[in-house]
């Protein structure tokens, strides 16, 4: 089985966001594999171990993403592909999906897995957009996948309920928390990761021009949410407190 995983390098979930000159600063920031993509990687490895084949992990990003690709290889992926998008102007979800579509154009694949969303931009668009462009079915936020021949049975998180879906391969799925418990890379896995193939592609290699894939969205302003004020504890008996609360909601917060 040919299995592909879409991976993104993102800020560590514990990083504090700092804005400098209208941009989010990545100075001294720790990067990780997007946690939802980690579920996808784990599931891809399990599918390969059960059905045979090969897992290729693909990222669209800057050179530094090689580190996260190596971690994916250490976890057990077989090969990695880094598509360099450093020349893409104002890259957005549209750009990334176009680049990936160009990459997959001549590939044979049975399953493509990705994270449900990235923990930075959180748009959840890459998977569905790519599936549309490739003309294959996609199922988002899956918590279970079973494959039998060219048919997949999936359980999908539907706002807390479970939806059971059957789909045919080739198929694109995006992973939701609960799909699995990603493994730690083992020491032998880490030692082997460097020897596994990691291919770096430029837009040229995909017959793309940087203008073909420059972003379709415009960032007007980047700002942090307003700082949370200190909480206030109302005093007095319940009646007094209720009256005070109504007064504050009306006069200060102006919500009623």
């Amino acid at each position, binding site marked *: 089985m040919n299995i592909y995983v879409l991976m993104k390098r993102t800020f560590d979930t514990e990083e504090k966001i700092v804005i400098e000159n209208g941009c989010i600063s990545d100075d001294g920031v720790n990067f990780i594999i997007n946690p939802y993509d980690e579920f996808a990687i784990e599931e891809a490895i399990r599918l390969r171990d059960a059905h045979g084949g090969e897992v290729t992990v693909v990222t669209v990003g800057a050179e530094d993403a090689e*580190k996260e690709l*190596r*971690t994916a290889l*250490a976890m057990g992926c077989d090969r990695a592909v880094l598509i360099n998008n450093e020349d893409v102007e104002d890259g957005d979800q549209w750009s990334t999906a176009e680049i990936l579509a160009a990459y997959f154009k001549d590939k044979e694949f049975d399953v493509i897995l990705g994270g449900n969303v990235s923990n930075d931009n959180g748009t959840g668009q890459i998977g569905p957009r790519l599936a549309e462009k490739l003309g294959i079915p996609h199922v988002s936020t899956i918590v279970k996948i079973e494959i039998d021949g060219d048919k997949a049975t999936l359980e999908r998180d539907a706002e807390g309920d479970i939806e059971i879906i059957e789909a045919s391969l080739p198929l694109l799925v995006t992973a939701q928390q609960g799909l699995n418990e990603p493994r*730690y*890379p*083992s*020491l*032998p*896995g*880490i*030692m082997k*990761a*460097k020897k596994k193939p990691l291919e770096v592609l430029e837009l040229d290699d995909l017959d793309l021009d940087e203008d073909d894939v420059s972003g379709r969205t415009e960032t007007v302003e980047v700002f942090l949410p307003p700082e949370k004020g200190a909480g206030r504890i109302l005093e007095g008996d319940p009646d007094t407190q209720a009256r005070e609360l109504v007064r504050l909601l009306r006069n200060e917060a102006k919500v009623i």
Partner: protein
Amino acid sequence: MDFELSDEHRMLQKMMREFADAEVAPGAIERDRTGVFPEDIFKKLGELGVLGLPFPEEYGGGGADTISFVIAVEELSRACGSTGITYSAHISLGGAPIHMFGTEEQKRKYLVPLCTGEALGAFGLTEPGAGSDAGGTETSAVEDGGEWVINGTKCFITNASYARAIPITAVTGRRGSKKEISAIIVPADAEGLTISEPYEKMGLHASNTTEIHLENVRVPKENLLGRRGEGFKQFLATLDGGRIGIGAMAVGIAQAAYEKTLRYAKIRRQFGTSLSKFQAIQFKLADMAMKIELARLMVYKAAWLKDNGKNFSKEAAMCKLYASEACMEICREAIQIHGGNGYMREYEVERYLRDAKLLEIGEGTSEVQRMVIAREIGC
């Protein structure tokens, strides 16, 4: 000069850190209270391939270097000192002498199960009358037919309850007034060998510390480890490596104490401001950060020298001495900054101090480290 970790080191560090945070740290307070050995953690470390970390792949090892070993020890010790020392002793006292001095057959028989995690490694050196002073060794091994007959007592032996075979040192003869000391591998289930755990310790409660009695224990002659009469030299070489492990443990425990204290100092408010705004507290925290940085650099340097085939006895002693003393100072200040809370078990810093004290004693006291350094600088 290059102070960067390699990609492999970085990945290993991240993996060990996540493993330690998720699997080792949560039970540390409870294990300190009950003294229950973390068997499940070692099963998982075995599955991750970490138990054979620096040994060749042909024996089931990971083929990694000493820097990797140091990283693994530091991260485990940051979460739980008992887990850290169990791991460090397993590799540097248990596996290393067999790897360094064992025959091909001995490595197949004794090193492979250590790498796969079927057994833990231990080394029977210390006796009631002998530690760094090997001349005090009383345990004797006498040839009888094709066998060694061993009698004696070993004390403070780490991991022996979980070992399958234990290399021990014994007097195998005399050259004039000088004892001839050799190392012999003794199966843990040999007749006449008993392992007990009689100690109530100050710290490292979940580490397995044992006493070994040998009464007419018979083992085949080929169980001699390395050459006859070279036991002393062998154990000096073994301890050189072990000291790097103790240094790494000290860095890990110090790091834990520092991180907890920095967080506490930022949250805890007194006299209308957080503790971290008081210069007296800031200076303590600055000293902690500095000492950890220096200790880690020295540990890395000793490991680097070992990896590059250079002499590292002096640096191993220096890193163990400096890191363990710095760790004690840092743990003491960590409790001080925590005030009354620091004296309470749930804040963990008092455990760090109790665990850290061993580091100034085990594998050669601080005084012995100074003797080693003094000898190396030509005194």
